[in-house]
């Protein structure tokens, strides 16, 4: 671990440099060019009177700590937390609430978060109101005496709706509410929610941060000491932590985050524009398109539009035909990888959501979600064109 002086210097570096030089990139003991994988569950305590920094890996592991400091640095927070999955990160963060509390959540939230709130946390008497967060009035109208938190996802999944983060956090602060934001789609390269007043930033690091469809992981970051301590107690108490091996793989993936995001976003913009003119496509959702209703707000709060494009082909039959014909993208759940992934929200990520709720949120049977990878964009377009026309 580098000393504090160095960490301050590191924080001043530009994002691309921080990705590679984050303070733990070199093992101090040996000079090795990568943090070692501490595959240890427990740590020898040389002096009973002075407990060591690490005593048990659930409470803290050196490899995981390197990752946790790394994400805190990138998000501009003060404390990072690594979890076994994005849902483990989100469930642990929601456990900050208690029975009788109420939370306001963006309505087109990830299906797994929706399931957690409606099928598990309801039994613990945590009440949720889902609102369309593009409409600020809906957010403020949802306030109740027992409201404790607001949960945002922007751009949302899969219809890429934009929430005005600063407006929501400003209002939340006035009302003493905790704000949480799922930053999976943007990553800290494009969007840094702490600068917009958010209290807890969450990630399914399985996606863009890791970037290779090979690591299941979740991350949380706080920038307040007291809140960080509370979240740490839950991370340690509930035990849904990320292993040393996966922590190392995730750091390895994160080193190329900017290079991957730049490439994928360039391709996604081209793909969205191309789809917008395609006769077989009824609607395209991408914040970078001129007519996207949240474009101005998104440009105010983010540096880029991301690499996910959703589009509607009009019917379930047409979606099925498309999915069976594409050759290049992986037809699978998940997103944010080096390889392109085509998903069908109605049957995959949002299968847990009742059909009528799904339709209210624009997640029709004809909607597909394209996560653009690092393949050549002309190849991807040719493949998609053939599948759409087929």
């Amino acid at each position, binding site marked *: 671990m580098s000393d504090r002086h160095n960490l301050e210097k590191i924080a001043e570096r530009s994002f691309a440099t921080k990705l590679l030089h984050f303070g733990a990139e070199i093992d101090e003991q040996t000079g090795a060019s990568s943090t070692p994988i501490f595959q240890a569950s427990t740590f020898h305590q040389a*002096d009973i009177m002075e407990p060591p920094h690490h005593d048990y890996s659930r409470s803290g592991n050196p490899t995981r700590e390197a990752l946790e400091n790394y994400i805190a640095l990138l998000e501009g927070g003060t404390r990072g937390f690594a979890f076994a999955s994005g849902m483990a990160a989100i469930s642990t963060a929601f456990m900050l609430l208690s029975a009788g509390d109420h939370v306001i959540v963006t309505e087109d939230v990830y299906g797994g978060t929706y399931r957690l709130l409606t099928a598990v946390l309801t*039994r*613990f008497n945590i009440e949720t109101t889902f609102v369309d967060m593009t409409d600020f009035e809906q957010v403020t109208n949802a306030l109740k005496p027992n409201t404790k938190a607001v949960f945002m996802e922007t751009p949302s999944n899969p219809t890429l709706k934009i929430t005005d983060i600063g407006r929501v956090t400003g209002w939340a602060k006035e009302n003493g509410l905790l704000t949480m934001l799922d930053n999976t789609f943007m990553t800290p390269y494009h969007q840094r929610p702490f600068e917009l007043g958010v209290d807890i930033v969450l990630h399914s690091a399985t996606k863009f941060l890791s970037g290779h*469809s090979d690591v299941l992981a979740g991350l949380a970051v706080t920038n307040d000491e007291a809140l960080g301590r509370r979240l740490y107690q839950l991370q340690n108490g509930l*035990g*849904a932590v990320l292993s040393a091996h996966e922590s190392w793989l995730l750091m390895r993936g994160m080193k190329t985050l900017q290079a991957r995001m730049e490439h994928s976003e360039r391709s996604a913009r081209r793909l969205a524009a191309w789809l917008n003119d395609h006769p077989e496509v009824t609607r395209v959702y991408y914040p970078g398109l001129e007519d996207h209703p949240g474009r101005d707000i998104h440009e105010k709060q983010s540096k880029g539009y991301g690499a996910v494009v959703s589009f509607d082909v009009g019917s379930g039959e047409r979606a099925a035909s498309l*999915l069976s014909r594409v050759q290049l993208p992986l037809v699978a759940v998940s997103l944010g990888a080096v390889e392109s992934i085509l998903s069908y929200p109605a049957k995959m990520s949002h299968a847990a959501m009742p059909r009528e709720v799904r339709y209210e949120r624009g997640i029709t049977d004809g909607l597909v979600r394209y996560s653009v990878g690092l393949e050549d964009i002309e190849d991807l377009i040719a493949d998609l064109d053939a599948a759409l026309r087929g």
Partner: protein
Amino acid sequence: MKIESHLAQIGSVKEPVTGAVSFPVYQATAFRHPKLGQSTGFDYARTKSPTRTVLEEAAAQLESGDAGFACSSGMAALTTIFALFSQGDHLIVSLDLYGGTYRLLERIMSRYGVTASYVDTNDLDGMTELLQSNTKAVLIETPTNPLMMITDLERVSAWAKSKGLLTIVDNTLLTPFFQRPIELGADIVVHSATKYLGGHNDVLAGLIVTKGKELSEQMAFLHNSLGAVLGPQDSWLLMRGMKTLALRMERHQLNATAIANYLLEHEAIEDVYYPALPHHPGHDVQNKQSSGNTGIFSFRLKDARYVEPILRHIKLIAFAESLGGVESLMTYPAVQTHADIPVEIRQKIGVDDRLLRFSVGIEHADDLIADLEQALAAAKREVQEA
């Protein structure tokens, strides 16, 4: 087939394409769908992942259950189990309990209106007294940690069944090699697999095994929804550890029995808590329900001033938390594993400042005894000089 054979064969030749004897580590999160609406059985690694599945099936089989679930830690396994309950539910729990479980119940689950009463789980009258209309389950550790109290699992699970309660047993210390709680009537078995199942102090993991279709389905839903799942590399390492479980447990037991007998005779020791010792109050029940004894025991010193020098002078034995590894570890429960349990409960069950817990490894017993001998002698010298 005997359990030794099942253990050695975990994952063996289950990989159909190459026939690899060791099951591959599937370091993949997403799985291609052959066609829309068709799946290979694997969609997303949180829900189901091939390497984890082999481990989970092995755990279910070894524990005589219907389904297994691998979690990122023992505490993650318990958290997932506790999510079965709802606001207003009540649990009856072993009094002498792992500190992390106590903390989870008292500091976190209590905020959701899930309450717990702590009792000696051998005391059916005491348990009947604690029974409330909203009581849903009994959670038992046997042997308990660190005082090694034994609960009669057949008797308590029959009682629980008659009251409509679920029986949950933490089988970390004995493992299915020595004890299979589901065969004795339990509904759910939980493990900190970090301990004996992993066996090498290198993997953090938890396992849940359920009996019954409905309970297994509920657990699968929670396991996926909460997402505290075990990664493929750690699943593979855990299976690798489990292949030698039988050998290790036999050796742990042999060493622990030799050392417990040695300490029992030592002038500085007040008592040794190990169910294999004939004077242990749970000796007969333990022999009835288990085929062997674990590798940890606790011992109480006559003089608390010995503790610090002993921990400083042990050389071969490491002073560290955790247990169940091939290396010997010594723990001071009052300040380490049980620091979260209030002093009055700790005193009541006997976790005081004279108690040390010894997780006996698979080194040679003579070397371990020699290490203890020199540490005890050095402690005696220092106490006398002071």
